[in-house]
């Protein structure tokens, strides 16, 4: 008996289903925020590895560079949770515009401190 032609698996692997669900169900805005978060995370990991493997001198520059990534990541993540339509019920008082203004102001203050500390 000839072997059956391979049938498509009835259930996909969880990772592919997760990716598919993400790309289909997530709004473009949140995807854009996620891309920024990934960039920040990679940049922070790169600096941390440089600090461990190469040099932590000058340490203040490491602290400034790394904390700018971390701070920006935190601010961006909170922006994401506030503008997510699924969380509307949680943040009744906070409009997306208000959330964005908070995010922008917080980031500007963060960068002010970072550049003061960097040199």
């Amino acid at each position, binding site marked *: 008996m000839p072997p059956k032609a391979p049938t498509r698996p009835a259930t996909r692997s969880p990772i592919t289903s997760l990716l598919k669900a993400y790309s289909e169900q997530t709004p473009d805005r949140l995807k854009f925020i996620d891309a*920024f978060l990934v960039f*920040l995370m990679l*940049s922070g990991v790169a*600096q941390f590895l*440089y600090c461990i493997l190469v040099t932590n001198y000058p340490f203040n520059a490491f602290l400034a*560079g790394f904390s700018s990534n971390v701070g*920006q990541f935190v601010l961006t993540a909170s922006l994401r949770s506030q503008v997510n339509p699924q969380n509307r019920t949680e943040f009744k008082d906070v409009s997306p515009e208000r959330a*964005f203004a908070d995010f922008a102001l917080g980031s500007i203050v963060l960068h002010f401190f970072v550049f003061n500390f960097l040199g």
Partner: protein
Amino acid sequence: MRSFSLLTALVLGLSAFVRAKSSQGDDVLVILDPKLNRDDYSLFFGGLEKDGYSLTFRAPKDVKPKIIKDDVPSFSHVILFTPETKGYASDITPQSLIHLLSLSTNLLITSSPKQTLLTALSSEFSLIPAPPSSPLLSHFPARSDPPTLLPIPVPDPIDPKSEYADHPLAIPPICSPHTKAVWYEGTAWALGNNPLLFPILRAPKESFVSDASGDEGAEGVVDAAEKGGEGLWAGSSLAVAAGFQTREGARVVWVGGVEVFSDRLAAKEIAPGVPSGNTRFTRDIAAWAFQESLVLRISHISHHLASSPPLVGSNTTNLPTQYTTNDKLTYTAHISIYNPSSSTWTPHVSLPSPQMAFTMLDPHILTTLSHSPSHAGTYTTTFRAPDRHGVFKFVLDYRRKGWTWLKSEEKVAVVPPRHDGYPRFLSAAWPYYAGAVSTSVGFVLFVVVWLSGEGRETRKKAE
């Protein structure tokens, strides 16, 4: 009238000082035993007077002039030609002679095989006196003179073939080069291990100390040689002339016999047609004792950052008092030697390996100063200050036997960098700078894209 005579004395004293050979003064007190005839030593005394010294003679039992008056020494130098004197006036005691040294008066002391007050004093200088009444004698070279009168070759500081050339530190260059051998009559000392003491003239190898005038005591000498140790007083480990320089810089010369200064031995030929070196040798050891030769001083020292040479005309009063850790520092010492022929201080160019220590309790840096050929007498070094803050000292401490000791200490504070003194924008930190800048640029782009996207969305909704 009194003031006028005082003024005259002052002017005379000043003019005498100008002519003086010594770097310290030219008043010499000669304590001369009455048994010795002053004219028998006319070559030695005449040589000193010709060079500008004013000699004052005094017998040991004379009361005047006093060697110390009101705790001030009356003379710059004292010569004791009292090899066999038993009794002195009350102001000459071993204690007062030691006190003279602490008052920076120099001594030239002659001793003899006889046991006197000076024999006891010599052991205070770590000289170990030979048994009493035992002169130094030698049967070599064969000669018609008695064995107690022996020729001794003078160490040559320059001739590399000299038997002393291997030990440049053992005998400082007190004697002039090419001095002929000297005739010597007297005792000899063994030298203790006092670091301030050094031999000027060693006894010949073949010589020994014995109380036998003839050869009948030879058995005793052979016995002593077989036993070794303290019984043996022989060979070139004995010294017939020794120098001692106190920690304050006063100088003492001990000579085992007074006859070496006499006209008789100065005129005696050492070889047919060759006069002995006594005149030159005695003048040389007097020159050393009276602070003419081997006299050094630090004219001034300076230190500054290696990157910023000091202003011309800067002196010790406006030297920097503070440096930062890891600074490059330059230390310079100007060292002069006294030139007795012109009574001036001239730059000293051949100081062997002077060292400078940068110390805070311990020497953190110990380095050799090198002579800079462009500036005679200038010894300099450049080094990095240690990565340690605290109060440091530049210490120049130069001690060589026979030479004046040099000592200089300069205190400076070494501080950590000020808050704005650290290096900034280091190349090692570029990844961090790039990280911070990219985050900011990313933030700006994010805002631009976000706001434009919002505009599009509202338009979409409106449509």
